[in-house]
């Protein structure tokens, strides 16, 4: 699929959900709308939970999730999933923090509130501030399932409601620990290897980094018309470019 396929099309595609997807969606929307002004594509976040809910209720055409749909969700709404990229979830701390790696056991103890000070981890004499994502976030579910082995994080943690917000908070707080999609990593925060696994997209792709997930687009029933075209466009060469530019590994349509 290329931009040519959109020629002469008009209509609206509404997209909402996972915040990790936004850069890809925006880039695709921008390229399509610039070529075909009659097409309107609206993009907003909200988190994976919002994606499921809104697409299920029919409020948007494509609901993005940063996790696989649950059986119950598929059943209830008749959703169809389109995984298009691989992303890892990296544990992140402030760049000034000398801690340079954690074991998974330590990670679990930190997030469940057993370890509360950095000096227990070889860091400075300071309390640890925990940051987690809101319930319904795909990033959170992935992290808790793969990273924490389903341990329940302490209620004492601050809640951010997007990957971006999480990154900003960690970048400002010397004592922070949190997690973001690998695509969001940059020099303002420091990603920590877990059990020696380096959080990079390559490792996520080749399976040596295990806290990974797929990014999905979901539609209610079989996608039609413009929505179909849009999904195909994400899988196209252009789309793969946007995915790579956002820091994810493109995944071809199976």
């Amino acid at each position, binding site marked *: 699929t290329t931009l040519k396929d959109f020629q002469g099309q008009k209509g*609206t595609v*509404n997209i*909402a959900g996972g*915040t990790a997807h*936004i*850069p890809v969606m*925006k880039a695709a*929307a*921008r390229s399509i*709308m*610039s070529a075909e*002004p009659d097409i*309107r*594509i*609206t*993009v*907003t*976040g909200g988190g994976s939970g919002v994606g499921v809910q809104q697409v299920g*209720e*029919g*409020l948007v055409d494509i609901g993005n999730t940063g996790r696989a749909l649950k059986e119950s969700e598929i059943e209830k709404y008749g959703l169809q999933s389109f995984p298009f990229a691989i992303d890892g979830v990296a544990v992140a701390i402030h760049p000034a923090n000398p801690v340079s790696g954690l074991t998974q056991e330590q990670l679990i103890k930190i997030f469940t509130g057993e370890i509360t000070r950095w000096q227990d981890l070889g860091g400075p004499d300071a309390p640890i501030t925990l940051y987690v994502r809101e319930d319904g976030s795909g990033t959170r579910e992935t992290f808790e399932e793969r990273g924490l082995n389903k341990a329940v994080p302490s209620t004492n943690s601050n809640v*951010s*409601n*997007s*990957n*971006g*917000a999480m*990154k*900003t908070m960690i970048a400002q707080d010397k004592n922070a620990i949190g997690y973001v999609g690998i695509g*969001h990593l*940059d020099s303002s925060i420091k990603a920590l290897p877990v059990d020696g696994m380096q959080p990079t997209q390559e490792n996520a792709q080749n399976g040596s980094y295990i806290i990974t997930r797929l990014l999905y687009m979901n539609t209610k029933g079989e996608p039609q018309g413009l929505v179909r075209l849009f999904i195909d466009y994400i899988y196209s060469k252009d789309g793969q470019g946007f995915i790579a530019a956002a820091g994810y590994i493109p995944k071809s349509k199976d």
Partner: protein
Amino acid sequence: MKRPLIFHVFRSSMGLSAALVLGCVGTLFFFLLLKGLPTWGTELFFGDTAPMDAIMGKAPVWEGIWPAFMGTLCLMTVTMGLVLLPGIGCGIFLAEYATPLWKKRVNTAIDLLAGAPSIVMGLFGFTLILFLRRAFFPEANTCLFLAAGCLSLLVTPVLVVNTREALEAVPSSIKLAATSLGLSKNQIIFCLAVPMAVRGIVSGSILAMGRCAEDTAVIMLTGAVANAGLPSSLWAKFEALPFTIYYTMAHYQSQEELNLAFGAALLLLFLATAMVALAKLLEVGHKLFWQGERPSVLQ
């Protein structure tokens, strides 16, 4: 001069608290001005789209707050369109026609509505649309119209109360004089009282518009999105300044994106301040015109 100690404490605390509040608000304002003003320019509004194209709606704007600004304006217009007639009418009803019992009832209801948090209003809109989809219109969706509808519920009390007060401020002696001349009740209301109250009503409407411009929680649940381009129809999703600020704050990846939020915050601040200032000006003019009083412009 016998006065308790606490009195003297209080006396000295007055200046202190004033300084505190002035300091806080001053810092906030100058911070926004300092960070916001340098971002102002065509870049802020239109991103890299040509301004003329953007204004005409020929090309979508990507990294600019123009669509959000237009969205906010549209939202205000539609909301006012929805709320003006019922709100003012209800105000007239309360001030002039309602029996004491009804007056009490309606005032209570209006008070309840005035107290309702805006997030609850947003939830109401969201649920309403789900309900409508299931029961009547499968095509219904969150959109500009829904957001405007919920916002109009939110600002109804402002409008009703202002109208009511403007009408109640019409001196009863004037109504009595008109009655003694043999005018009927409707004549007095529509030929004398309402024209006398009109500026009070207008300033109430402007305050209501200010509230439309600033509210975030309602539109968050009823159709505001991060990227939609210029508002295209009543039934489409839209962008709005307050939502843009909130969203950018949560998602920004770079300083440029944060600058967008600064620009939007400043613009929104100006918009809201302009509304309040305009309402105040009208109020002053109103007093001057009708009562010949000379209220201080500063108060």
